[in-house]
């Protein structure tokens, strides 16, 4: 990239431009379409920063934290085999896999179902708090953390899909059946709420504060 033609690195916000979040088009301040609030190329609503992002992220995160408790306490599924009921929670499911010697799969499920949701909730709490108190510490590392969270969060759905396979397949009345437990609903809600929380978070705020401090504003 040619550095010479941009002697001062600037952000879209600093020159009054807005970047379309859907198609990436850069709407310039002298563009007549700016008043319309829609992207001239793809028609999405355009905004410089997500509206009310800090509060929306908090609301979604708190809801996810509350549901995290029933998600882990209640069984996500019950296996009924020859009249014997075995209830599985998220954690006991991982333990059963490990107990039967399936170490690789146990590790994958442990990471996706236990580690990822916890890391995601803690990291988003930290990131959202950091932009709220206008923390200026290591913006690049925080941006990196956000990018990781956004990518890995969806993989926690693996347990829900596993249950959907089992209940669709194991339906032998007297011999073996699999039933859904309420924990599955709470767990899916946690995954979806944290996905929405990550989408509501505005990563550009991390950098806005670093800029504002350099220019003596804010």
């Amino acid at each position: 990239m040619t550095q010479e033609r941009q002697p001062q690195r600037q952000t879209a916000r600093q020159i009054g431009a807005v970047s379309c979040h859907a198609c990436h088009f850069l709407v310039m301040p002298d563009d007549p379409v700016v008043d319309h609030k829609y992207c001239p190329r793809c028609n999405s609503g355009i905004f410089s920063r997500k509206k009310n992002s800090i509060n929306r992220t908090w609301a979604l995160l708190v809801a996810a934290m509350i549901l995290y408790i029933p998600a882990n306490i209640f069984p996500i599924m019950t296996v009924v085999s020859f009249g014997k009921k075995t209830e599985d929670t998220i954690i006991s499911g991982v333990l059963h896999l490990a107990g039967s010697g399936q170490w690789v799969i146990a590790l994958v499920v442990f990471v996706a179902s236990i580690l990822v949701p916890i890391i995601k909730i803690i990291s988003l709490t930290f990131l959202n708090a950091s932009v709220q108190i206008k923390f200026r510490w290591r913006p690049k590392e925080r941006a990196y953390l956000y990018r990781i969270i956004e990518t890995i969060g969806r993989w926690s759905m693996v347990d829900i899909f596993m249950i959907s396979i089992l209940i669709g397949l194991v339906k032998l009345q007297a011999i073996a059946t699999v039933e859904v437990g309420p924990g599955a609903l709470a767990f899916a809600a946690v995954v979806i709420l944290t996905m929405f929380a990550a989408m509501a978070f505005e990563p550009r705020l991390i950098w806005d504060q670093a800029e504002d401090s350099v220019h003596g504003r804010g």
Partner: protein
Amino acid sequence: MMVETHRACLECDMLHEITEMHSGEAGYCQRCGAVLFRSQKNSLDGALAFALTGLIFFFLANLFPLLEFEMQGNIQTNRLIDGSIEFFSAGYGLLGLVVLLSSVVAPMLILLFLVSILLPLKFHKKPFFPEAQIRLLVHLRPWAMAEIFVLGIIVAYVKLGDFADVSLGVSLFSFVFMVLATLLAYVTLDMKDLWYRLGELQKK
């Protein structure tokens, strides 16, 4: 009009000039490291071919069983949509809806939108409401979880292997090929190229 010369990073807002790049290269934000754009040669033809392939595999994945389960002489199979149906009949309609959307509807719509945008372009015709279709494509993407569904099948297979005979069905392989084709379509598709071609058609 609408020629892109600059682009702001979607994650930190830093402005960058769009530069000519070789096929397969990506431009990264100099400040935060996010991907700004990727360049691909013949991206639209390649993406169309992959999307069509994916669509064929998607239909095959719906026709046959995913897994076959045998216990005490009883054989049972499941299709792609059976999990969602069982969630509904067990009173967990919300879960059924989530699974249906993320493992069937969203992956299918993504392939359908790709084909319905790229196929007319191939014949120099304007696609039907291309802007709306591209917007939906962008917003649907995080909710299409076919690749995670595949991992879910593997976990279910391992879990069942402990107490019954399980074998893989034809649909499982079709579904995996659909996931791969979709991934390749996304990797091949250069959005700059797509908008450029749509702009060319508008001028005529």
